[in-house]
């Protein structure tokens, strides 16, 4: 290697504990620098410095520590942390979670080399996210609108179709105005080879691969590498967005595996565990990933993040969804009950939320009635679901006439508005579907919509009396 001078060699490993290697008299090493371990068999492992002191350095090894022999292993310290080589040629490429090409092609000739721990954007340099992204899904576009520069996670559960939904969004979001460039950055963390193949083949089939950068850390790949995977992905995204001016969509899946990796590493470092064994700094750590979304004043590009996580046992109060929800700008929550009913996408809109929705909708963006219509649909559905609970105890007959209408509304809302199968809807189609649905309720109940907008956008009831009465 030409830059051999940048290495320092040591043969002074004192102890090996789990993935941690303690090196004596490590000298001039800095926190987060990388290290290579040369095993006597010619095998090379990489690691990262997590603690330095005058007497020793602690190196966390990526991958297995098997066969590391303190007597014979040579450790070399690189004088820098994890970096990623960047150029527009990263598009169309597939990398490992540690940023190595795994598509059989040669390394990318670099135009820039960036630290994967990107610095924080100065809040005063942030530009407001306000451009509507059409995902084609009514439950998202109509009620929990995604905007460019937002971080909007999907809270999924084991066996729920989060990947299919992400794929649907990728397929729609990629269609942009002509004068803009779109890129997809995909990071798979701890995913199975089946999942990896699903995404890779769908990117290949749709042609999306040409404007994609893919990072794959499989379930059996090193845990430590998993912690770097989203950081490599976001470093690539920042380059494409802020250097190349592209509109970048970042899909991170599965954040639950990432957090479990973080916990594993933390416990091997013998840190004091927080809730459910996750480290106390998990909020800060997740923020260092999620906050790398947004827009910067005076730059054309943007980074929009869709992290996917599985709620263990569908529990939204579990630390992973909980801390994520506190950092991200809303969440899309998938529901097992809806999935069982055959509804796709099975989005439970009540706990779902998009905090930046108001910036991306309304006159000149989607339509002026969007906000109020969404509020009215929400209220109607919430009340209908409440009546469903009441009806399960006292029977539908016990409900008042109005409440029975709300009950019918909630059912139709799920079957006709949320459910759409594989088809995509335009935003106009979504809003019109919402207005049509409102006809189930008497107009005097539409109090979250101004009279003016009702007059302008009200749909004459196409189904009319023909709409079947729910029994």
């Amino acid at each position: 290697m030409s830059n051999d001078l940048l290495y320092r060699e040591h043969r002074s490993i004192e102890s090996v504990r789990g993935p941690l290697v303690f090196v004596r008299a490590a000298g001039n090493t800095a926190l987060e620098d990388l290290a290579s371990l040369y095993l006597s068999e010619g095998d090379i492992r990489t690691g990262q410095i997590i603690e330095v002191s005058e007497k020793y350095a602690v190196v966390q090894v990526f991958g297995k520590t098997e066969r590391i022999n303190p007597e014979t292993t040579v450790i070399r310290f690189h004088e820098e942390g994890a970096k990623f080589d960047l150029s527009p040629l990263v598009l169309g490429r597939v990398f490992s979670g540690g940023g190595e090409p795994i598509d059989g092609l040669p390394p990318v000739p670099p135009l820039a080399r960036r630290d994967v721990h990107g610095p924080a954007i100065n809040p005063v340099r942030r530009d407001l996210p306000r451009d509507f992204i059409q995902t084609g899904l009514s439950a998202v576009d109509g009620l929990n609108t995604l905007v460019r520069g937002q971080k909007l996670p999907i809270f999924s559960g084991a066996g729920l179709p989060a990947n299919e939904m992400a794929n649907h969004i990728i397929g729609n979001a990629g269609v942009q105005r002509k004068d803009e460039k779109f890129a997809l950055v995909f990071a798979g963390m701890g995913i199975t080879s089946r999942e990896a193949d699903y995404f890779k083949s769908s990117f290949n089939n749709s042609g999306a691969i040409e404007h994609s950068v893919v990072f794959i850390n499989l379930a059996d790949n090193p845990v430590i590498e998993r912690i770097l995977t989203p950081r490599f992905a976001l470093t690539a995204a920042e380059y494409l967005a802020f250097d190349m001016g592209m509109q970048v969509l970042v899909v991170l899946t599965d954040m639950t595996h990432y957090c479990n990796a973080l916990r594993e590493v933390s416990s091997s470092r013998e840190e004091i565990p927080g809730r459910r064994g996750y480290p106390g700094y998990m909020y800060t750590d997740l923020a260092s990933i999620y906050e790398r979304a947004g827009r910067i004043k005076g730059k054309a590009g943007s980074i929009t993040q869709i992290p996917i996580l599985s709620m263990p046992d569908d529990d939204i109060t579990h630390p992973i969804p909980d801390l994520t929800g506190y950092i991200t700008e809303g969440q899309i929550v998938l529901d097992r009950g809806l999935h069982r009913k055959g509804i796709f996408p099975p989005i439970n809109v009540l706990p779902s939320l998009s905090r930046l929705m108001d910036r991306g909708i309304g006159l000149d963006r989607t339509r002026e009635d969007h906000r109020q219509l969404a509020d009215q649909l929400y209220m109607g559905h919430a009340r209908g679901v409440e009546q469903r609970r009441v009806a399960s105890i006292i029977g539908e007959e016990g409900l008042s006439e109005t409440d029975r209408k709300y009950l019918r509304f909630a059912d139709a809302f799920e079957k006709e508005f949320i459910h759409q199968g594989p088809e995509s809807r335009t935003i106009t189609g979504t809003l019109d579907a919402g207005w049509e649905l409102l006809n189930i309720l008497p107009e005097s109940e539409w109090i979250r919509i101004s009279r003016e907008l009702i007059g302008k956008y009200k749909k004459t009831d196409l189904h009319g009396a023909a709409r079947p009465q729910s029994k």
Partner: protein
Amino acid sequence: MKHTPKIIKVSGPAVQAGNMFGCFMGEVVRAGKDKLIGEIIRIEGDTAIVQVYEDTIGLKAGDPVERTGELLSVELGPGLLGGIFDGIQRPLPGLAEHWGDFIHRGALIHRLDREKKWAFKPVVKPGDAVEYGFVIGTVQESEHILHKIMVPEGMKGVVKTVAEGDLAISDIVAVLQDGTEIKMRQRWNIREPRPRSERLPLMVPMITGQRAVDTLFPVAEGGAAIIPGGFGTGKTVLEQTIAKYAQADVIIYIGCGERGNEMADTLHQLTKLKDPHTGKLLLERTILIANTSNMPVAAREASIYTGVTIAEYYRDMGYRVAMLADSTSRWAEALREISSRLEEIPGEEGYPTYLASRIGTFYERAGRARIQGRDQETGSITVIGAVSPPGGDFSEPVTQASLRMASTFWELDYELAYQRHFPAINWRTSFSLAYPRMMAWYREKVGGEWPEMIGRTHAILQREEELSEVLKIVGADAMEDRERADLEAARLIREGYLRQSAVHPTDAYCSIKRQEKMLSLFLEYIDAMLKAVERGMSMDEIAKSPLVERLLRLKEISEESLGEEITDFRAGLKHFFESINR
């Protein structure tokens, strides 16, 4: 060379430094080649543990450590208003100007603009005796805020000379006879509360323009309120709304470990919107402190103290200051993170055992007080702290410790948020301990009937609570009309009165006078309805009345047409219930 201070160990934000003989607790140091700012938080022999306020990636053992001999302090003086700072008061626009779009480590920059000239008008003349807190002169900092230049701590004597005219903050504005020079800028240790002369009772509410707050659970001027709520329940929107509309002279908004986009949004709104009380741009009365969740964790810990110290400084000028902290949980977590790096024995949920006392000393810096040095003047700090309990579980330590300190408690509720009922303040569990003492003010300024109206409103909501249990068992159809009327009354209060839009041009801010007018009308309608039902009118008949929808839309009626609508509604009300009676 051997004895120069240097780093001996690095672990996250905690750095151990050696050869630190003579250093003191709280001393600010600069660590490493990048001169990262840190504070000494533990001393053992000649080694010190330094909490570093910036990212420690790249620090090495053996790197130099520089001592400053100073405590962590803020710079106080003209130029704070309209500013946006990081957790240790570095101006973010200045950082952006020098180092671009991303936060740079070790950035050394003046906290306040040293070049800008301010028109200084002296208040004292040579020969006047002055001491701490005395006003030397004034500067018009913004159109509405007259910045009082006060004698800094430790200075006392007789004025020899005093300046006048356009001066920068480092220029000397007065010299005392013993040669002491007084400048417009001064420093204050952020961990030390600025003294106040006498605490005053809290008798006046801080009006926020939010009906659920001002009507049901008001916060006193000089009091403290906490807003606990799970994610998505609207803590930040409520904090932002209060920042916009609260009746206060100066607003300190601390974004502590929260979202970058939200800070950009707050900043954007403040630069666009006008103060409903003065008609001036909101930014001119606001100071923002932004330490977003991906900025260094230790600076998050400091940001709360930086904010409250600045609040005290404006209090000492005689202003009503509102300090909004979003979120205090992130601050507590920063304490926890640093505590665990120091390997302290953890208390509940891993938080350090001193969590409750730290929260206590913070909230105690709120209050209304006579000003030290100028006893006839008063100033106040009202603190509103958001709390983000993990999993929405309010039994966790930060919520509980804050609860003991705050006199007003607005619990945000998931169920309400899911129905998009905002502000999602739960009327069953929230409270305002300060309300009884403020009743005299309401009676005098708002209306003589106010206490009765509030009692009635609570009773209506409470009745719904009781009936909802029955409702779940027998269903609405099986209920008596009298009970259905009670339920309808509560629905009207909830939907028409308590629910308030943060974005609707008319509804977003509701003056206390308007609150009184609206609530009277709601109660009037409800009483008429209940009486009519007693006389035998059926609820089905009443439900057909167009009055209900008009009442629910009352909040959308513009200020100009409100009087007319109310008169008209009253006539309609009388007509409707009487006509059916016949």
